[in-house]
């Protein structure tokens, strides 16, 4: 309780401090009078009595200062004083202040920019009730598909989970959608989502107006308001000016009438990060669009699923429970034809935390962002080292000032606090400019993500979380770069400093300053090596031969769920549409493929039919195509012929060189029979299908530019099993090779209108663009790290320059003396440079070791360059040393031109 009473009394004292000051003075006065009087009574003369009283009392100023520190809230008293004082100090050296602020703005700005992205993508907690309970349910298919994505679920699986699992409640599903949207005269696309009826209830969000969707809305035939729609707060404000009367308004979404029943709360952007739906419709809308079978299709995995953990159930327990239930759930839901595909057989169920929502971008960007975060922290450390150096130089020039203030009763803590305030007054404006820089750089950084959707949805506007981190950053900086000068200042011996009035003669902090340069150089070298390695990687990736023609090739996803054709008729439709597109001017070839180049991989097991008895089936990449695929994407046909768009080629296939070598190592593969083996792990029965090899094509990559070309088997498009529309599943791509984007687009649109008018138009992917975007992650890393390395280099140069310049100033007299005694200019130049060369050497040595470990840590991102590449290390070090020496030459030159007489006279 003591501390509480003390605090209260301090607060009270703070409020009436003027009165208390007067009282204290009066108390001291009466004390001295009592003492003087007693001394007089003892027979001392008047003067002597007074002096003795003062002597017995001790230093009045010090006591008063000590008393005040203990009495009120000294921080609140002294901070305004310190600020006023710091302002005077800063305005006395505006150039110094400007350099400090710019340095900090660059360092803090880089940190803020990266952190804004990290926060938006990884850290922002969803604005929902108890976000910690939320988990994402998904199927981990990484055992087969190497791109690291996990697969969503579908309604039958979700219902089975709800029925069998005891771990979850409030399970809800979510699928993002782009809809054509009509409201009166407004006719536009709208970004939306279809969600389970219980979604909003489970998330615990409240409507901004009207009501949110309920399970009653998600029924076949619609709910009480027919097809109910909830709009986002954003478009409610932007499009409807927050008009409450829009509740009950009729709108048209993809040609179907719907009713706006409510508005989602402000700031709610859904559970999928970097996607912000502007309209929410019940999952029943899928049935409205494509029929009930499509909504309940168990052969597609399309619903992102989230749930809340039951009280007392941990995520690990839930995961364990689900993995025991999972095989039987799959048996009961997935169609038999798909159930035993390797990708499903090897899948595991995942229960992942969803406090911050989920995004596909995360699997790709979590590590790179962490890496960038470490790099910007290094840049900030270089900044701080720089400013520490500058401040030390100034602190030694201000030693007398500190000494005088200490003599006048300022405690060491007080001196340090004052210096800290001074640093803070440079750091905070620096942070402000930094935030502005980060804000300006935001769109540019987002663009480098190579994801148009995310580019639109992620806000790089600084928010509270980001700003508080930035301010914390600034304070940390102030502490870091203020610490060294404050420490040396507080260890200044008063008498020595006052006696030694010439600032040049003092050497305080030299040792510390010498430490900063190697530190900066080491960090810079690490950054430069990392940046060079990443830059080389991007260059190598982009010039890597993928095996394709990349110019003027376009992919368009098809969405033929609503066309009346099925089975054979659908296969014919695909082929006819491709052929029709080829008739348009400007289109060279058009075809169909299940997996367009560099957009993922499918695998299947094959074996040479002639060896089927004694050889095990081996895995190969499988693609489903139509005629002209190879000419469209520019894969050379090495032997045999292309597939034809006719059923006579139903049992033909084409293999890549690697596949030919894999299955027929000793003979020519042409005209041999390749057997597709689908192994049912449960029944142990193999389903086989034989294909005759009619052609061999050049090797290509499929999953990424990093892989070596896999063995590939190309099968003709054919009718599929019941639930699946073709043997390629429900999604296929048109592959168009045309003279221009416009030609490809118009051929596609005309063909769609003519032959599949009920299907939505989908924007085309430009292959050259998607190729560049496939290295977006590496590009982001290399450009950003390159920028940070440059920044680090620049800052280190300033640091080196500062140190040498300061040393020259400090040693002016000495140099003058040496020159007077006959030292040549070359000797003087060498004298000045010798020290900096030593420091550079230490820095390069430490930096080399640090860079070696850093390079090993980013090994996973490198492509065709060894992390220990000696050329990269040598060139980086050389660059750093050269620029460092250059920075040192300027002040060294000044040392050479010192006039001995002048230098000695000033002493």
């Amino acid at each position, binding site marked *: 309780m003591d501390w509480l009473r003390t605090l209260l009394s301090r607060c009270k004292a703070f409020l009436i401090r003027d009165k208390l000051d007067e009282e204290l003075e*009066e108390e001291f006065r009466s004390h001295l009078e*009592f*003492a003087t009087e*007693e001394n007089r009574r003892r027979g001392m003369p008047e003067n002597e009595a007074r002096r003795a009283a003062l002597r017995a009392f001790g*230093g009045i100023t010090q006591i008063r200062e000590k008393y005040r520190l203990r009495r009120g809230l000294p921080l609140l008293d002294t901070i305004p004083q310190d600020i006023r004082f710091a302002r005077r100090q800063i305005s006395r050296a505006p150039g110094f202040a400007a350099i400090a602020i710019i340095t900090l703005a660059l360092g803090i700005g880089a940190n803020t920019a990266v952190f804004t992205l990290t926060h938006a993508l990884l850290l922002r907690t969803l604005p929902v009730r108890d976000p910690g309970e939320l988990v994402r349910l998904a199927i981990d298919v990484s055992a087969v598909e190497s791109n690291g994505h996990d697969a969503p679920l579908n309604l039958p699986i979700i219902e089975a989970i709800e029925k069998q699992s005891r771990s979850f409640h409030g399970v809800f599903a979510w699928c993002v959608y782009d809809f054509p949207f009509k409201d009166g005269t407004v006719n536009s696309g709208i970004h939306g989502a279809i969600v389970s009826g219980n979604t909003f209830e489970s998330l615990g969000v409240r409507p901004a107006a009207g009501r949110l969707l309920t399970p009653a809305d998600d029924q076949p035939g619609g709910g009480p308001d027919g097809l109910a729609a909830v709009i986002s707060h954003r478009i409610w404000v932007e499009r409807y000016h927050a008009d409450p009367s829009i509740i009950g308004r009729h709108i048209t979404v993809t040609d179907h009438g719907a009713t706006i029943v409510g508005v989602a709360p402000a700031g709610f952007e859904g559970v999928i990060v970097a996607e912000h739906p502007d309209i929410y419709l019940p999952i029943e809308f899928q049935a409205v669009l494509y029929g009930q079978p499509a909504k309940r299709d168990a052969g597609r995995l399309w619903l992102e699923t989230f749930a809340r953990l039951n009280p007392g159930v941990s995520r690990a327990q839930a995961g364990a429970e689900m993995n025991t239930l999972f095989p039987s759930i799959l048996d009961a839901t997935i169609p038999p034809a798909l159930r035993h595909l390797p990708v499903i057989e090897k899948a595991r169920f995942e229960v992942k935390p969803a406090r911050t929502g989920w995004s596909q971008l995360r699997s790709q960007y979590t590590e790179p962002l962490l890496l960038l975060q470490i790099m910007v922290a290094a840049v900030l450390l270089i900044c701080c080292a720089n400013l520490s150096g500058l401040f030390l130089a100034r602190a030694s020039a201000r030693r007398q000032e500190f000494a005088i203030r200490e003599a006048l*009763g300022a405690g060491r803590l007080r001196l340090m606090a004052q210096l800290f305030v001074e640093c803070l007054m440079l750091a905070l404006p620096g942070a402000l400019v930094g935030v502005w820089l980060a804000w300006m750089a935001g769109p540019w950084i987002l663009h480098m993500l190579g994801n148009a959707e995310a580019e639109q949805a992620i806000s790089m506007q600084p928010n509270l979380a980001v700003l508080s981190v930035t301010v914390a950053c600034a304070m940390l900086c102030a502490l870091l770069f203020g610490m060294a000068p404050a420490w040396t200042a507080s260890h200044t011996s008063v008498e020595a400093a006052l006696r030694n009035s010439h600032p040049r003669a003092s050497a305080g902090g030299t040792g510390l300053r010498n430490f900063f340069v190697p530190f900066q150089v080491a960090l810079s070298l690490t950054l430069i090596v990392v940046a060079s390695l990443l830059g080389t990687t991007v260059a190598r990736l982009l010039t890597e031969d993928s095996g394709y023609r990349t110019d003027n090739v376009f992919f368009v996803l098809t969405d033929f769920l609503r066309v009346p054709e099925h089975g054979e008729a659908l296969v014919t439709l695909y082929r006819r549409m491709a052929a029709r597109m080829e008739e348009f001017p400007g289109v060279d070839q058009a075809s169909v493929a299940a997996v367009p180049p560099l957009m993922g991989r499918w695998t299947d097991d094959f074996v040479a039919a002639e060896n089927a008895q004694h050889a095990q089936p081996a895995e190969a990449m499988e693609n489903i195509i139509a005629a002209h695929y190879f000419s469209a994407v520019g894969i050379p046909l090495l032997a045999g012929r292309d597939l034809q768009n006719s059923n006579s080629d139903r049992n033909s296939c084409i293999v890549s060189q690697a596949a030919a070598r894999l299955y027929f190592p000793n003979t020519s593969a042409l005209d041999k029979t390749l057997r597709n083996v689908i192994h049912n792990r449960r029944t142990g029965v193999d389903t086989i299908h034989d294909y005759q090899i009619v052609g061999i094509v050049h090797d290509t990559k499929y999953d990424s530019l990093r892989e070596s070309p896999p063995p590939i088997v190309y099968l003709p498009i054919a009718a599929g099993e019941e639930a699946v529309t073709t043997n390629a599943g429900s999604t296929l791509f048109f592959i168009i090779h045309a003279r221009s984007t416009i030609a490809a687009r118009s051929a596609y649109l005309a063909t769609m209108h003519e032959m599949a008018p009920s299907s939505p138009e989908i924007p085309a992917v430009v292959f050259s663009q998607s190729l560049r975007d496939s290295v977006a992650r590496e590009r982001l890393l290399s450009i950003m790290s390159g920028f940070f390395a440059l920044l680090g280099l620049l800052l280190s140069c300033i640091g080196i320059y500062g140190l040498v310049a300061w040393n020259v100033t400090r040693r002016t007299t000495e140099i003058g003396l040496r020159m007077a005694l006959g030292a040549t200019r070359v000797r003087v130049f060498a004298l000045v440079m010798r020290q900096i060369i030593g420091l550079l050497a230490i820095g390069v040595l430490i930096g080399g070791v640090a860079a070696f470990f850093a390079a090993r840590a980013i090994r996973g991102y490198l492509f065709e360059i060894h992390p220990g590449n000696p050329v990269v290390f040598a060139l980086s070090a050389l660059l750093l040393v050269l620029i460092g020496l250059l920075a040192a030459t300027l002040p060294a030159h000044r040392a050479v031109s010192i006039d001995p007489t002048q230098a000695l006279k000033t002493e």
Partner: protein
Amino acid sequence: MGDNKSDLLQGTLDLMVLKTLESMGPLHGYGIARRIEQVSDDTLSLNQGTIYPALLRLQQRGWINSEWGTSENNRRARYYSLSRLGKKQIDKETESWERVAATMARFLASSR
């Protein structure tokens, strides 16, 4: 400055002040300082001013109270007096001080 002179053991001065007020009744700062000097036979040469931060500390803890009054020779001064809490505190402080002193004494005796 000042802190290299023989500083009183933390809490020692507090107890001296409390004890002084207990035996003398309400007293002003100079009176307390003089009393402490006299009792210690002037062996303890403290700067009289240091009594004031100590008095403030005791007040903040609620162990002593203060009010302005007039001295016998008609001079205004602030008088300090022991509070109820302070009276209790004296026993505690005395006990703990005696323990320390006894320990020290034993220690010195044994190492002699």
